[in-house]
């Protein structure tokens, strides 16, 4: 970033030197940008004020007053666990596949097909999430029932496939897969964009040194796209963590904390829990739900913070 700033300064100096009319144009433009930035901050302050005001009563209420007579922490902990579990599952499946898809499109497929595929992936990234929800409940869930039974029988010794396998297919595993399918095109669209922008010079240089295609990709394309892929993954993770309706429709939520991915009792996620219980709630129960929204904030923030640290470290190298 540092070198960018110096060029920016140089540019400003040059622009400043070349007359007042241009400077006025610059001023208007940069002011517009600042206004946009401030508008967003104002919007967020509004949301934050709303959330804190609505969530506060639940945070301060004694556990006897809360709807389930349990403390806020013990209410939110399984939800937070479920949220993170679903998000992690989705990421484990989606990120490697998304990178592979992007690489296939940018570097392996013939150019003509690649363009079509690129269009297709962009289109998939643009499918609304309620459709993924409907697909999960009507198609993937039922189809996954025999597969989960197989996992229970053959791999039941691994705790995550402990079972007993769900007979309806509304499990954490299916939710993780649906979320993965949902965010895969998003990550892939971002990654594809960056991979295709990898400077040609670098790629040709690597090949000139006798690198095979994979070595070229590993030494030039992946390092160049790394921070953007992480950023795209965060975009996808944000959607996975905050996904409401698809999870609410699909998941069978009736358990506390469990790592069993194929059972019928799964921990709920924060966003789905809000959607499921908000309609019939009133009074303090609503405050409680909104307070769990604050926790989702904290989780998203933490993941983004970690991602930014990883990006910063990779940029230093």
């Amino acid at each position: 970033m540092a070198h960018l700033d110096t060029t920016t300064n140089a540019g400003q100096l040059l622009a400043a030197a070349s007359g007042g009319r241009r400077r006025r144009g610059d001023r208007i433009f940069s002011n517009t940008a600042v206004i946009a930035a401030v508008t967003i901050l104002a919007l967020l302050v509004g949301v934050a004020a709303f959330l804190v005001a609505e969530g506060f009563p639940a945070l301060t209420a004694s556990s006897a007053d809360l709807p389930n007579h349990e403390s806020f922490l013990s209410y939110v902990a399984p939800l937070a666990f479920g949220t993170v579990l679903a998000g992690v599952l989705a990421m484990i499946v989606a990120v490697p596949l998304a990178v592979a898809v992007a690489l296939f499109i940018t570097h392996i497929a013939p150019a003509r097909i690649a363009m079509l595929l690129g269009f297709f992936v962009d289109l998939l990234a643009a499918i609304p999430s309620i459709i993924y929800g409907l697909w999960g409940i009507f198609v993937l869930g039922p189809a996954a029932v025999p597969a989960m039974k197989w996992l229970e029988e053959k791999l039941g010794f691994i705790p995550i496939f402990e079972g007993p396998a769900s007979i309806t297919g509304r499990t954490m595993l299916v939710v993780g897969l649906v979320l993965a399918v949902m965010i895969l095109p998003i990550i892939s669209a971002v990654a594809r964009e960056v991979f295709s922008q990898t400077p040609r010079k670098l790629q040709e240089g690597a090949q000139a040194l006798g690198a095979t295609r994979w070595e070229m990709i590993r030494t030039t394309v992946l390092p160049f796209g790394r921070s953007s892929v992480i950023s795209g993954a965060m975009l996808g993770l944000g959607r996975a963590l905050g996904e409401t309706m698809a999870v609410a429709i699909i998941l069978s939520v009736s358990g506390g904390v469990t790592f069993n991915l194929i059972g019928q009792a799964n921990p709920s996620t924060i966003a789905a829990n809000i959607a499921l219980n908000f309609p019939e709630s009133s009074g303090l129960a609503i405050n409680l739900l909104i307070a769990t929204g604050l926790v989702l904030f904290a989780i998203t923030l933490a993941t983004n913070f970690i991602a930014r640290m990883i990006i910063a470290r990779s940029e230093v190298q």
Partner: protein
Amino acid sequence: MTPPPAQAATLSTRSLLSGEGSRGGSLPSWAPWGAFVGALAFCGLVEAALGWFTIALMVVFGALVAILAIYAWSRPIEGARRAKDRAVTMAIVAAFGVAMAPLVSLLYEVLTRGARGISWEFFTSDARGVVGGGGAAHAIVGTLIITACAVVIAVPIGIMAAIYMNEYGRGPLRRALTFFVDVMTGIPSIVAGLFAYALFELFFGPGIRMGIMGSIALTVLMIPIVIRSAEEVLKIVPNHLREASYALGTPKWKTIVKVVLPTAFAGLVTGVMIATARIIGETAPLLVTTGVVDSLNTDPFQGRMQNLAVYAYNEYRSPGVMKQASYDRAWAAALTLIAIVMILNVIARLVYRRYKTEIR
């Protein structure tokens, strides 16, 4: 992507020097396909013998075996590096196939199930005065209006903010913005809806429902996605382009508008499309802000407005006695949503292509 002839010499020299690379031989051109089909057949037979046979398992194991097979085949003939290249290529293609399978299935299901509910009436009439049925024109128009308003508000603000962060920003405001945009990606959609409702309730009193309220709620969800993706593509615009422009004495704002934005245009379009798609299918925030109504309403500033996502959700959730017909309508609404997104995408691309050829 093949190295130019002048560099071929370097290639072979280096290969010779390092004692690696090609050993002269190479696999026939059908080798990857052969390995894959062979592996598939092998796994199918083994599974059938063990009694585990399912198509999904055969394909998954088949792909794994094929990767190993092509490596083992290529290594003695073409050397370790080419073998590795082949194996990785095979793995990437396999991963691509695995990733596409569910997406193709999804499109197929939406198309076939949605087609059942599609009719002329579905697009041309609303559901006013029809018991259990009617069209979805009111929902389609509502979706277009609500989404368009959200896009009109969110995209300029989002892109300008991204420009600020990438081109101008320094110091506390930029840091605050980065931080808060991260925060914003974590807003659960229903909370955005409640926020918009609370905001309008302040001014218009309780029970207020308007299309524009939904747009505001969606804006809150859309802005961080626009910013994050725009920031990413602005970041990778090569600096030498900016420098060249400055060297010609072009002012900064003109450089951004004429050099940076055009270079990043494709990426910006992708980002805006992703953001639009994310919000066009939102249900929860619209349920509490725009309400549910059977009649057509084209004024976002007055009265309730139906939209496709809520329509689909309602048809799925409260199907009434004629269940199948209701589900068909839900899928038809889903199909219409995809079609809208697809048309928008195509339009954006056409604009881009026309434009791109002109700046060259």
